[in-house]
C-alpha cells in the first residue's frame, strides 16, 4: 500500500536522513547491515552463482557450452515443456479463478463475514502445499479417492476409465490449483481494494453502464496486477518439488523432479548437466518474476 511513494524523490523523510547525519556516521553505517549481506551472500547468492558458473564448466572446470547443449536433449526438453505447461495451466486457472473469487468476496455484495473468512482460508491453503497436499488429493481423486468412488457408485462415471489419473498433467494441475488459487486471492486483493467506489459512480453519472465500467475502467486498471500475479503464480508452480514428488514419485517427467533425482544420484550422474538444469529453472522463474515486478510497478504508478 505504501510502496508506491517510497521511491519518489520528494519523500521528505528519506532525503532528510541522507543529508543530516551523512558525513559523520556514514562510514560506519554500513556495519548495521553487514550481517544481512553476509548471510545473503553465503546462503543465497554464492550458492546460486556457483551453479550458474558450473553450468558452463566441464568436469575438469574448463569452460564449455556442452551442458547447455545437453538441455536440448529430447527427454530434458520434454521435461521443461511439461513443467512449463503445468505451471502455465495452473497459473492461468489459478489467476482467473482466484480473481473471480476475490471479486465475489469483495465486490459481490455478500455478507461481511465472507471476506475475512476467505482471506484466512487463503492464507492457510496457499501454505498448504507439499507432501500433505498430495495426500489430500490422493484421498480425493486417487483410484480409491472419495470423489472417484462416489462418482463410480452414484453417478456411474468411471473417472479412471476416461483416462484420467491423478498422476497426469490434469491431475497435477488440479492439485497445484489448491495453493495457486488462494495465493492469487491474497495477491490480487489489494489491487481490487484499490478500485475506488467513486470511479464507478463517476462512470455512472457520465452515462456508463456496468459493462462500460468493467471494460473501460476496472479491467484496464487491474490488468497489470492480474498479469503480474499470474507470472508470480507461474514461478511458484515451476519451482515446486514436494507436491509433485510426493504425488507422482518419479513417474512424471518434470524439471524439478528431474533435478531432484539428479541430486539424489538416481539418474543422470552428470553434475554439470544438473547445474545446467538449475540454470534453466532460474532463467525461467527469473524471467517471469522480472515480468511480475515490471507489471507491478506499472500498476502502482497509476495509483495516487
Amino acid at each position, binding site marked *: 500500500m505504501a510502496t508506491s511513494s517510497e521511491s519518489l524523490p520528494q519523500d521528505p523523510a528519506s532525503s532528510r536522513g541522507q543529508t543530516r547525519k551523512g558525513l559523520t556516521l556514514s562510514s560506519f553505517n554500513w556495519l548495521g547491515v553487514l550481517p544481512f549481506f553476509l548471510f545473503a551472500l553465503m546462503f543465497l547468492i554464492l550458492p546460486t552463482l556457483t551453479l550458474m558458473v558450473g553450468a558452463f564448466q566441464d568436469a575438469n572446470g574448463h569452460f564449455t557450452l556442452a551442458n547447455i547443449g545437453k538441455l536440448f536433449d529430447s527427454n530434458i526438453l520434454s521435461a521443461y515443456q511439461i513443467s512449463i505447461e503445468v505451471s502455465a495451466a495452473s497459473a492461468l486457472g489459478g489467476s482467473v479463478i482466484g480473481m473471480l473469487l476475490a471479486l465475489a468476496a469483495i465486490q459481490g455484495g455478500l455478507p461481511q463475514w465472507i471476506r475475512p473468512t476467505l482471506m484466512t482460508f487463503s492464507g492457510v491453503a496457499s501454505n498448504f502445499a507439499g507432501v500433505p497436499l498430495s495426500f489430500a488429493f490422493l484421498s480425493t481423486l486417487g483410484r480409491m479417492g472419495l470423489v472417484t468412488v462416489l462418482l463410480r457408485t452414484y453417478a456411474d462415471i468411471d473417472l479412471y476409465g476416461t483416462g484420467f489419473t491423478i498422476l497426469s498433467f490434469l491431475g497435477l494441475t488440479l492439485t497445484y490449483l489448491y495453493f495457486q488459487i488462494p495465493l492469487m486471492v491474497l495477491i490480487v486483493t489489494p489491487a481490487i481494494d484499490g478500485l475506488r467506489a467513486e470511479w464507478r*459512480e*463517476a*462512470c455512472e*453519472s*457520465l452515462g456508463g*453502464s456496468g459493462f462500460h465500467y468493467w471494460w*473501460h475502467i476496472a479491467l*484496464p486498471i487491474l490488468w497489470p496486477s492480474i498479469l503480474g500475479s499470474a507470472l508470480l503464480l507461474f514461478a511458484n508452480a515451476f519451482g515446486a518439488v514436494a507436491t509433485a514428488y510426493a504425488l507422482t514419485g518419479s513417474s512424471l517427467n518434470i524439471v524439478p523432479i528431474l533435478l531432484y533425482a539428479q541430486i539424489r544420484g538416481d539418474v543422470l550422474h552428470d553434475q554439470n548437466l544438473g547445474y545446467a538444469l538449475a540454470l534453466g529453472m532460474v532463467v525461467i522463474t527469473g524471467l517471469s518474476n522480472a515480468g511480475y515486478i515490471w507489471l507491478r510497478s506499472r500498476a502502482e504508478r497509476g*495509483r495516487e
Partner: protein
Amino acid sequence: MAFLTIANLHKRFDDHVVVHDFNMSIEQGEFITFLGPSGCGKTTVLRMIAGFETPTSGAITVGKDDITHLSPQKRGIGMVFQSYALFPNMNVTDNIAFGLKMRKLSSADISRKVAEVIKLVELKGKENHYPHELSGGQRQRVALARALVVEPRILLLDEPLSALDARIRKNLREQIRDIQRRLGLTTIFVTHDQEEALTMSDRIFVMNQGRVEQEGRAEMVYTQPATEFVARFMGNYNLLGAADAHKLLGLDIQGHMAIRPESIHVLDASANQEGALDATIRQHQLLGSIIRYQVESQGITLQVDRLNRTASDLMPAGTAVKLQISRDDMREVR
C-alpha cells in the same frame, strides 16, 4: 416553477437517520451551497440527487421529471468528487471524452467539445497527461471539465476543493463560480468551509444532524443566524445564555443572544455614553487586518474585533474600557 424540487426527503441507514425531512426548491442557474460539519447529511442529500443513494422516502423532481428512482446514467446530472475520481488508466483527453463516448457522439464532435472545455478550464497543453502527472488543482479541473462537457442539467460538487492547499483553493473557487455564471449552470456545492460558502453561493442551506438549520441568501445567513448552531458555525459570534444576557444587558430572552465581535464598539473608560458597559481588556490575538480582544465585563468574557490600523492602537491587557452594543446588532437565536 422551480427547476429542482426536493420534497420531504428522508434517508435512514439501518436505525440511523441521516437526512430528516429535507425540502428545497431551486431555480435554474442558481448556485446553492449545502454547508455543515462532517456527518450532517449534506453529502448524502447530494448523492441522492446524483442517484448513488436511494431515499427512504420523499421525491426529487427536475423540471417536470420525477427522478427519485431513476438510475444515475439517465439523470443528466454531473458530479465532481472530493477525491477527483479521475480514471487513472486514461489521459486528460480520454477522461473528459468518456461521457461523450457513452452518449455515442461522433469522434469529430467529441474532439471539438473536448477542446472547448479544455480551453474553458485552462488545461491546454495537458491533453495527453495522465492523472498521476498532474497537480491536485489540475486534476480537479479535469474532473470539472469531465462533468461539464456532457452539458448536465445540474452540476453537483462534493467538497471539490478540500483536498487542495489554500492558494489553489481560492483560485479554483473563483474559476468555478466564473464558469458557472457563464454557462448559467444550476449548481449545488457541498462544503464544510463557511468562507467558501459565503464567497461562492447565491443561497446557503446550513445543515446539522440531518436537518436544515437555516436557508437563505449568503449575507442573510451570516448576519441573521436563526439558531445557536448557525451562529456558532457561521462566525465567531458571542453567544450569551439567558442568564448572562439578563445580567449584562438587562434583557429577558428565551434562547441565546448572538452578537458579532465586530459590532461591539470599544470606548474610552472615560466616555460618558448611556448604556455602555464597564469592561477590562484581558488579552488579544492578532488576526492580520483585525485584532480580536477578549474583554471581560461583570465576569462575562466577550470577543471584540477592531481594525488593526496602527501598532499604537493596541490596548494592553488590564486596560479599562467601555463597551457599547447597539440593540440592532443583537440577535436572539433559538
